[in-house]
């Protein structure tokens, strides 16, 4: 059970604390979700105020949904003063694309869809080129193409520090050189909530408003704020095949089936969403938000294990980030 173990009701700590707390102060205390929300809004506004041409990278996943929701809050009653950018590898789940278009419309934001056409022409797919090469060409390169083409000097990403070790050390305003590369050894110190937004032409900042959120925070917030998410997060009967011990959904006819491989209908859902051939599903009966959160609390595997791209080797995420992956 990974549920937090209730502490054995300790006696109040005996410290030589000098300042007693007044009742007025307690009333003014914010909960952890309120603090996280305020911090994220501060980051969103700071980027909008300091940069000429920001963009929000929108991946359609639950974290992106939370980030977009926070952007609506940050600038209300104005619409968020930047466009959304989706890097479309052409292998996203169909339901994601439908959801994406509606979300942009609801937020009154422009949507830029970027696909690496060169990669499409060369026939790059997860099956022909392997997940690593495919990700580099269809995701990293496509992202860099978009940033260069539109001259964005800041890009929001929905990454969280609890997701992966290299992210735990990344700044909230994370500097990228003119090649979009990240240098983990040479990051700008980040103190208080004072973010250094100075970049030269060609350089940029990746800003991570959700840095201090955990997966559980995200789900609790989605529940509390009733934020719409892609239906794929909820369990339903869907066609899947078994591969390397993981369940892959057959979202369309492009998924090559091995001899004898027969899609079967299973009650499944997704903890994380990406390209469907690279995103493992889990069997689950959880069809409502509270059920998902409940299931998450008794889960025994961390979230990114459903993303096949991270499995290649230890430190793979750090390598990708140095090369310009988000």
């Amino acid at each position: 059970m990974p549920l937090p173990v209730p502490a054995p009701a300790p006696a109040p700590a005996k410290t030589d604390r000098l300042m007693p707390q007044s009742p007025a102060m307690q009333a003014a205390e914010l909960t952890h979700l309120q603090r996280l929300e305020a911090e994220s809004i501060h980051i969103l506004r700071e980027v909008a105020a300091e940069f000429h041409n920001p963009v929000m990278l929108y991946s359609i996943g639950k974290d992106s949904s939370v980030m977009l929701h926070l952007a609506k809050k940050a600038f209300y009653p104005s619409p968020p003063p930047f466009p959304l950018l989706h890097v479309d590898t052409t292998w996203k789940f169909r339901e994601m694309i439908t959801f994406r278009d509606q979300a942009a419309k609801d937020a009154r934001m422009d949507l830029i869809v970027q696909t690496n056409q060169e990669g499409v022409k060369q026939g790059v797919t997860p099956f022909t080129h392997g997940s690593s090469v495919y990700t580099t060409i269809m995701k990293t390169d496509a992202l860099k193409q978009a940033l260069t083409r539109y001259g964005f000097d800041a890009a929001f990403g929905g990454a969280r520090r609890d997701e992966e070790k290299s992210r735990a050390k990344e700044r909230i305003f994370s500097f990228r050189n003119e090649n979009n590369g990240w240098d983990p050894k040479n990051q700008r110190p980040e103190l208080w909530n004072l973010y250094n937004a100075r970049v030269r032409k060609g350089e940029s900042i990746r800003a991570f408003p959700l840095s201090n959120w955990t997966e559980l925070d995200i789900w609790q917030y989605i529940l509390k704020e009733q934020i719409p998410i892609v239906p794929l997060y909820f369990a339903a009967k869907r066609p899947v095949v078994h591969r390397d011990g993981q369940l892959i959904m057959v979202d369309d006819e492009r998924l090559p089936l091995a001899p004898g491989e027969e899609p079967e209908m299973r009650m499944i859902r997704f903890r994380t969403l990406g390209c469907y051939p690279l995103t493992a599903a889990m069997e689950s009966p959880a069809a409502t938000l509270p059920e998902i959160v409940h299931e998450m609390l008794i889960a025994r595997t961390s979230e990114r294990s459903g993303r096949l791209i991270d499995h290649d080797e230890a430190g793979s995420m750090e390598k990708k980030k140095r090369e310009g992956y988000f």
Partner: protein
Amino acid sequence: MDAFDPAAFADYLARQERKDLLRFLTCGSVDDGKSTLIGRLLYDTKLLFEDQLAALQKDSVKHGTVGEDIDFALLMDGLEAEREQGITIDVAYRFFATEKRKFIVADTPGHEQYTRNMATGASNADLAVILIDARKGVLTQTRRHSYIASLLGIKNVVLAINKIDLVGYSEAVFETILADYHSVARELAFTSIQPIPLSARFGDNVTQRGDNLSWYRGPTLLEHIETVEVRGSESERAMRFPVQWVNRPNLDFRGYSGTLASGIVSVGETLVVASSGRTSTVKSIVTFDGEKPRAVAGEAVTITLADEIDISRGDLLCDADQRPEVADQFSAHLIWMHDEPLIPGRNYLFKIGCKTVSGSVTEIKYKVDVNSFQRLAAKEVALNEVSVANISFREPIAFDAYAGNPATGGFIVIDRLTNLTVGAGMIDFALRRASNIHWQAVDLDKQRRGEAMGQRPAAIWFTGLSGAGKSTVANLVEKRLFAMGKHTYLLDGDNVRHGLNRDLGFTEADRVENIRRVAETARLFVDAGVIVLCSFISPFRSERLLARELLEPGEFIEVFVDTPLHVAEKRDPKGLYKKAREGRIKNFTGIDSPYEPPERPEISLAGGMAAPEDLANQVIDYLRTHGYV
């Protein structure tokens, strides 16, 4: 919890929502077992997933340093290279939660050269866990960590006396260390210190009490951090609202978006714009979730006012009865965070709240040895050094002393050319004279004076290597202008070094000060209507930028006398290159000190390629075509 019970689960979620947040940092060196302690906290609070555990077991065999056991430190050390070296080298953040609280842990390294990382982690922490190896007791680094935590305003400390298992769980050792530590802390500003004997490796007193420390009556580490009241009194402080973004969706709505830094703001309250002194009342507090009657410190909201007054990003809205100070000169504590030392007189950017202003350090009063807390004299401040300095901004800003309100008293320092964050500071107080120096408005201005002389005043700034031909060309230009009946003056090393700057040597700090004085002098000449020619090597872009910024746009003409080093060295009119090559002159530009060429000079002269007369003609042509003469 295994079966889904909607009612019970709703209740559980409601409890989760009421949790508050504690941010803390851990300080200690690699050997104190700091990463092991956090790994242990995550493990014992059951927040490791199976795949993480499996990966950890695999990694422990490969990189681990504790034999067959799980090396918890590997959980914390994020970046590949660091794992191979077996040390943590930057700030890493970890997250865990219990029934009572959510925690964000900043893990920072303990080595001396990493003061900057610790300050970074401390700036957002409510509490510091200072680790001590029970076998070693209070060390120099313990003093350093305590000093930095105190400097950044942390009030609550846990003194984690780790590896108590290695001293036989001895109470006497614990008491000795505690007494030693109290003598350190006497000089610092902590309000609470909780000592806890523990063993991160075996788990004693981390989350479980265990049987080995029966003499200890206090809380375990987890019990303490779950219950300790640390949050400052942000909401009880005076109201401060830095305007972050002006919200104007249409002509009917004008709101000011920002995060309430301290205090409480209510509809109907009178606010003042600190810098201008203009007041208005709060008309509404707008959020996506509806209007609110009041907002408390930490909330991100949008405020609208009853009156149309001039407010933009960087302004500070305040309680009209508790106004902040407004000044342009301060005394502050500075932590330097870059390899290039802090140099007085050099122009930097300072970001405080939502405002970024240019300014410089006018005087380093002293450095503080973070190990002994001694004050030391200093002309420069190097990486990871702490100093107390006077700072001058180009414009007045509203602020509070950091000790009274960190949100409006802390700032970062940014290098203008590299854009790197090179330092951080905490304002102590305004320098009184700042508010007493007022500009004298005079009727006669430089334009009038220039018109009377039949010219547009300007500073023509010749920069280039020693022996590049700067003074030769500048002299020719001045003669030509004089012949045209123009009013000129030439400032160069010879007439400045012997008088105005006689007290300066050739260290980097002195050279910066040299150029600053020259630039200020040039500005006075321009104000007098004169065309002033300045001929100085001035090797650093930032100093030339400082000179440029002292003048109005169009008054500074940068002339790059671009003579290759081998040509200048061959000329060597004063024999200086020879001496520099022999090591008899130090810090000689082009030899053992860099020359940073201008990126966009108004005029670039190919020195060594054309006769000095031709080069002078190019300058005169520029002055004519641009209407100076």
